[in-house]
């Protein structure tokens, strides 16, 4: 009886040691820096940085292929945060990629003019436009990131930019003397 318990315990212990060692030996490192960079980007998926979205841009920054000043929606705050994370110099926003907006914006469709061509739906990177062919389209405002990619394809120019004014629901008090970046109104 005792020998059974001892044998089982010893064998199980050896197996445990083997597994524990191999867990350290064969540890798989992900790339945490990409996740950290991606978390700092505004997730507008607007493509103004010339990459397909925020995640590919984050991967390009991590590889050193892209500069940190290519994100107009994030603007200066994002550049400072990225420079802080990656320990590099802060640079002004690269004007070739666009200008920073003073206030977060969204778009609305003038529903009287919309002809239901679906071109803006295909352009929207976050699927924030609802509609079907030859039916009126509308923008789901809580999903709109303000990337304005839907405006150039519109054949009747019925999409207009609106500023997001802070309301009693989404207003965030800015804390004094604390490094605090207000969440971009999405």
């Amino acid at each position, binding site marked *: 009886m005792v*020998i059974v318990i001892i044998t089982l315990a010893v*064998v199980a212990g050896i197996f445990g040691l083997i597994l524990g060692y191999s867990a350290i030996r064969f540890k*798989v490192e992900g790339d945490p820096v990409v996740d950290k960079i991606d978390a700092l980007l505004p997730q507008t998926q607007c493509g103004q940085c010339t990459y397909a979205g925020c995640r590919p841009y984050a991967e390009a920054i991590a590889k050193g292929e892209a500069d940190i000043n290519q994100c107009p929606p994030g603007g200066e705050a994002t550049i400072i945060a990225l420079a802080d994370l990656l320990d590099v110099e802060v640079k002004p926003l690269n004007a070739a990629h666009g200008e920073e907006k003073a206030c977060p914006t969204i778009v609305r469709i003038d529903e009287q003019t919309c002809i239901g061509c679906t071109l803006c739906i295909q352009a929207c990177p976050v699927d924030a436009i609802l509609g079907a062919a030859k039916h009126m389209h509308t923008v789901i405002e809580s999903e709109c990131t303000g990337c304005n990619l839907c405006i150039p394809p519109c054949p009747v120019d019925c999409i207009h930019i609106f500023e997001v004014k802070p309301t009693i629901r989404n207003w965030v008090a800015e804390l004094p003397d604390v490094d605090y970046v207000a969440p971009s109104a999405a």
Partner: protein
Amino acid sequence: MTEYALILLSTILVNNFVLVKFLGLCPFMGVSRKLETAMGMALATTFVLTLSSVCSYLVNEYILVPLGLEYMRTIMFILVIAVVVQFTEMVVHKTSPLLYNVLGIFLPLITTNCAVLGVALLNTQQQHGFLQSLFYGFGAAVGFSLVLILFSALRERITVADVPEAFQGTSIALITAGIMSLAFMGFAGLIKI
């Protein structure tokens, strides 16, 4: 050499683990809905079955038999299989992320595959040596893979077939498995071992 060839032939066709011995039926029914998943499962099982067959032979021969603890086989083999599966998962994850994505969730599932335990126990029952255990495990795995892939290909066709309402879904799958089993019984006269 003929002996090993016979073991392979016997385990793949004549004494097929799934269709003749009826072991490992749950993955056989569970992951045979799509050919791709069946292939992933077949690959993972082949690897684990061969390795665990050898490992359980070593544990039995050099730990259990010298100490006279043969009656502890079952629990010991379960332990060995669990460790082999875990270890395989870690190594695959590290060395080949592509293979890990293919095998993915199937690796942990194999722990509870009774064919794996069955092979280990049958090895000791039939008093196989080291190489015999290796070939027995590998043959069993190839047999399992063959049947699983054949069956999943059949099931993909059955889903688009015009099956009577009462037989739809799992019933027709079980009937198909039964007919396949009958077909495999035909190999019984091939060799005697």
